[in-house]
């Protein structure tokens, strides 16, 4: 091959743009032709020198000292601008958001002043305060502590409120109402007053300020010789511990399975808890717990919250006679006592069915309350 043809490929060779076959031909020729070899070495030298000069030229380009700061500044501006662009993209929803806020506020005000249904206090998470107050034969409530721990001590010492030698009754008591000492000496025992009721509510009683409950309303008043159990002291915000979110956070703690169904073992007596055949529209079981013999089922339906409590009657009868803050009602031919609605909208119903003492309590209507009771 002619030297000129070979030399035409030198630049391609240096550019790395020569096929392997042509490269091999050039290499073979260079090994045989000293003139072409010399020419190629010269071109390689020029190429290396050009690379060097370009790099010198490149390194000599002066860089403005302020450039890094300018970049930082623009970066900061850009980040802020991106944030405001993001905000602007949501501007179209501001009208909707404002309308929702106005609506929610108006609804809250309406509920506060015109509706008997209280707004659950989700922030404080207050649960209904329930106490069992044991009135000793002398009528002094000081003798009984307001917490369940102390009550247990009473039981263990043989001074249980379940003492059958004493007349017992149970009534709902609203702490906002003045105590109304009633003479219940002549009443027939209808309701079972159980220590189990108290034991079923450790959380609630723990929430009470210790012995502070001892200065609670002395329901026993002048009733001598009675041991009276007062159940379910409902606080002014009293709503059953709905707060579905909190409750459902721990399935194990709710007594429900993943499908939201009851997941409690049968009571020691071998009976499964009774479930209502009727529930208000939208009502859902959100929690169930059992303390020994007492089962409590918590339901919620929007603003409405209530619970159903079931405990063994244990043969003790408590009377509703003489109670003035409610009325007697019939639940499927059985006697029951319906407590008047409290200012906070809570009502309660208690009755005995076979061997069970049943209680329903919450901020639902009387009609709904009776319907639930009759469906059990």
């Amino acid at each position: 091959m002619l030297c000129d043809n070979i030399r035409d490929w030198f630049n391609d060779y240096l550019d790395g743009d020569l096929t392997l076959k042509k490269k091999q031909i050039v290499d073979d020729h260079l090994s045989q032709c000293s003139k072409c070899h010399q020419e190629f070495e010269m071109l390689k030298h020029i190429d290396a020198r050009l690379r060097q000069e370009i790099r010198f030229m490149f390194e000599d380009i002066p860089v403005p000292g302020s450039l890094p700061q300018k970049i930082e500044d623009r970066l900061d501006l850009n980040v802020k601008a991106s944030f405001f662009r993001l905000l602007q993209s949501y501007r179209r929803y501001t009208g909707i958001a404002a309308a929702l806020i106005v609506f929610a506020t108006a609804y809250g005000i309406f509920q506060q002043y015109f509706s008997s249904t209280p707004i659950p206090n989700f922030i404080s998470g207050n649960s209904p305060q329930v106490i069992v107050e044991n009135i000793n034969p002398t009528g002094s409530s000081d003798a009984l502590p307001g917490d369940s721990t102390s009550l247990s001590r009473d039981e263990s010492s043989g001074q249980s409120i379940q003492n059958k030698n004493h007349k017992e009754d149970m009534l709902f008591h609203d702490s906002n109402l003045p105590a109304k000492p009633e003479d219940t000496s002549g009443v027939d025992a209808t309701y079972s007053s159980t220590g189990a009721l108290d034991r079923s509510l450790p959380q609630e009683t723990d929430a009470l300020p210790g012995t502070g409950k001892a200065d609670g309303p002395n329901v026993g008043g002048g009733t001598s010789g009675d041991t009276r159990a007062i159940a379910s002291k409902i606080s002014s915000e009293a709503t059953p511990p709905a707060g579905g979110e909190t409750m459902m956070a721990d399935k194990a703690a709710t007594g429900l399975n993943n499908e939201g169904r009851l997941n409690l073992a049968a009571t020691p007596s071998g009976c499964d808890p009774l479930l209502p055949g009727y529930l208000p529209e939208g009502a859902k079981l959100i929690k169930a717990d059992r303390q020994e013999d007492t089962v409590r089922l918590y339901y919620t339906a929007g603003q409405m919250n209530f619970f159903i409590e079931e405990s063994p009657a244990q043969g003790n009868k408590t009377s509703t006679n003489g109670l003035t803050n409610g009325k007697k009602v019939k639940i499927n031919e059985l006697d029951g006592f319906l407590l008047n609605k409290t200012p906070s909208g809570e009502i309660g119903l208690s009755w005995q069915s076979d061997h069970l003492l049943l209680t329903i309590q919450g901020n639902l209507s009387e009609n709904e309350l009776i319907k639930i009771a009759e469906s059990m």
Partner: protein
Amino acid sequence: MNDDASELKLIHAAQAGNKEAFSELISRHVSYSYRVAYSILQNQSEAEDLTQDAFLTCYRKLAGFRKESSFRTWFSRIVVNLCYDHLRKKRREGALLGKISDRDTATVKDWMDNVDQSMEIKNALKLLSDSHRTVLVLYYELDLSVKSVAKIMNIPVGTVKSRLAGARATLREILERG
């Protein structure tokens, strides 16, 4: 810790949103990127603006940097692409106004004619047209292949090769004269 490892650490931190790490990347690469921009644009203020734009682009795209090449290579591509977008825009505007730069259309022969016998190579290179100088910078400084240079500059591979060959021939002539 060697430079590569520390740079990799910086990149990881910057990708995780560490502003200080990104600032360190800026200080490490600002000079090189500005010089690349200046080599292509031959205009200080434009090179500054484009370097800033390149870092903003880098900030947005850093999460997508997969470290298949060095950061410098990856970032240089951003700078070069932005510069060429800018030049294309300028050319379009220039064409509309009938003001196509003479320097852009200059040939190797024009350059050789202007090179004085006694002129240093450095000064001779300054007489190159912008597009010729860009080919040399991309090829020799950024170590891009002929095909990559052609692709970036949107010119035929043959054009890139002829410019490289012309630069070698001119340099040879200067050296042989000297």
